[in-house]
């Protein structure tokens, strides 16, 4: 039993740090660069993505293993994934609009764009590709992927808030320095690559 729990924990750490979707797979770069201007907004975005990715990961795993694989219907897998993600995003949107109107307004277009956040579709596909055969593991990996995304976007937002006060060369102001920062962050996270085999 303890082996099982350690396995889940390893999976969680692996998806948050070692196999972080943003840093090692370069997924979800659009909101990662687009909404990372301010720390509070970045955290809100991370939470929204975590919710959607957990819901979508669990639901798609269930649909995969209960409907699609037994009936040999893997061919409609992607359509089903997108369906689940779009539905989950709609739910988040309604929820935010009701309970966090200011957050809803500050997200603007980026909220519906979670639908096309490739980190989410990527995670759903990875769950299938990595042959995750265990519901608990799928749930932990989905949640961990969301936490990993939140971690990435919050680190980025923290750095960008500091960048506003620093003396950046004129030609690198704005998007260029952000991309350079993203590259350096990725390099730093490469150091974790050997941590879990």
């Amino acid at each position: 039993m303890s082996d099982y729990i350690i396995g889940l924990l390893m999976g969680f750490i692996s998806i948050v740090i070692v196999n972080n979707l943003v840093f090692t797979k370069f997924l979800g770069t659009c909101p990662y660069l687009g909404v990372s201007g301010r720390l509070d907004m970045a955290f809100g975005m991370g939470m929204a993505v975590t919710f959607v990715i957990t819901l979508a990961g669990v639901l798609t795993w269930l649909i995969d293993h209960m409907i699609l694989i037994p009936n040999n219907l893997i061919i409609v897998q992607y359509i089903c994934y997108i369906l689940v993600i779009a539905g989950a995003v709609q739910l988040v949107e309604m929820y935010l609009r009701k309970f966090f109107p200011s957050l809803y307004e500050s997200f603007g277009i980026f909220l519906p764009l979670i639908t096309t956040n490739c980190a989410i579709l990527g995670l759903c596909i990875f769950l299938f590709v990595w042959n995750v055969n265990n519901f608990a593991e799928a749930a932990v990996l989905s949640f961990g992927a969301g936490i990993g995304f939140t971690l990435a976007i919050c680190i980025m937002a923290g750095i960008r808030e500091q960048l506003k006060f620093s003396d950046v060369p004129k030609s690198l102001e704005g998007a260029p320095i952000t991309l350079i920062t993203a590259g350096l962050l990725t390099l730093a996270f490469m150091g974790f690559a050997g941590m879990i085999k």
Partner: protein
Amino acid sequence: MMILADIITLWNSAWPAGVTTLALGLGFSIALLIADRKLKVEMDPKIEQAYAALPRIDCGTCGFAGCSAYAKAVVANPELLGKCSPGGAAATAKIAEILSLKASGSNIPARPIVHCTGRTEDKTLFAKYDGIPTCTSANALSNVQACKFGCLSFGDCVASCKFGAMKIIDGLATVNYEKCTGCTACVKACPRGIIEMVPFAYDKMMTVACRSVESGKDTKAFCKVGCIGCKLCTKQSEAFVVNNNLAKLDYAKYQPGEAFETAMNKCPTKVIVYRGKK
């Protein structure tokens, strides 16, 4: 027969996929329908009404991000009434009615006046300007036009106007007051600062349409219609003040009347003119 058989096999292997997707879609639509009912947000109908009463051009003159932001703010805080310059008195009155308030105080719309009368034939040019055809770049060179204060007539203000109310007529920027909404875009665009917002208490306002502070002699040498600071107008009305060789009209003191008409007729360079709706 072969083709028919193929179509049937195709159909047989395809329908489960279609049915699965349809069933999933149906399930999600039902879930979303329930969520939509449970999480419905009631919008204040006053905000929508106030928004409808505004011009909806998102010019930002009121200091908010756009008309919807202003509508929200004004419903929450009625003290912000009357900030909409393009909408003017009509929009203010409508919003006041929606909020069951009475708009009080003067609501004089501000409109721009170009403080120059120099048309192409009145101006003196030192050199032919062949550079980038904008006022801003022409203004960067010191001696394109003899008068340092006159309209350069490259039309930066025309380009800035969203409503087609600015036009260069015979080398002078002219405002079409029927189209102008008072959004202040041209005031910001003019590099020489000769366009100024003026409270239009009347449809037609009198103005000293010149900004030249050169001595009378120099002004006369450069321009046929510049203010030379002769102080003839100040003898007719206290509203005129001459400072630095330039007469100015205090618009708050202006009222249509004989004294102002006389001042206009006596002006030797005819620089006191009417601007406004015809």
